[in-house]
């Protein structure tokens, strides 16, 4: 039992670091994709990789550990009330980033300014990245 719980503790401790890495790599994928959009040579594999990476980053932050791998007790440790609090905070950060993207888009429409084609990519990445960075910062601070 101790080993099982220790496994959950280790996962809980590593989750912040994993979210940090995923967030930073999602930015790299977004930069690669935006570069391709700018040059007009978009590769489907890059779009797919970016989309999967952003989704995976979100899953690391907001996902619930599966029953097939973790026991009820382990899941209670991994997703305890502190983690829920951090997820709420990360969701607020994501909403703020996405809201800012939408607001700027609205302002651009009202001002009759054409936004670049990569704007949705940047906004979506900013949302996922904001959630990931906020969550990892809170988790790493709590681990100290």
């Amino acid at each position, binding site marked *: 039992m101790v080993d099982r719980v220790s496994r959950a503790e280790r996962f809980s401790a590593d989750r912040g670091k994993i979210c940090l890495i995923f967030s930073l790599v999602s930015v790299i994928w977004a930069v690669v994709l935006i570069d391709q959009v700018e040059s007009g040579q978009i590769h489907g594999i890059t779009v797919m990789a970016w989309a999967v990476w952003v989704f995976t980053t979100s899953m690391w932050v907001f996902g619930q550990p599966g029953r097939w791998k973790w026991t009820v007790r382990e899941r209670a440790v991994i997703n305890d009330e502190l983690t829920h609090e951090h997820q709420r905070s990360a969701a607020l950060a994501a909403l703020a980033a996405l809201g800012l993207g939408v607001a700027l888009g609205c302002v651009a429409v009202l001002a009759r300014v054409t936004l670049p084609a990569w704007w949705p990519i940047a906004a979506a990445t900013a949302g996922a990245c904001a959630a990931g960075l906020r969550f990892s910062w809170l*988790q790493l601070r709590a681990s100290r």
Partner: protein
Amino acid sequence: MSEGVEVRLREWRTRAGLTQAALAEAVGVSRKTVNTVENGVFVPSTTLALQLADFFGCKVEDLFSLHGWESNESVRAEAIH
């Protein structure tokens, strides 16, 4: 976040000779949660506060108390009546 809440969890835990990890395992949360509660970064839910108090065999007020809170008797009496 925990402004106004005085936490004495660390005193109770060390008196019991427990590590944060051992206490966390006993009440079914992560060590991070115990750590943040002890440091006053995170205010636990009522359920967790009751579980901690039950574990130590004390009252919740022994572990947590409101700092600088003055109960207003007249307001309470007015609300009841």
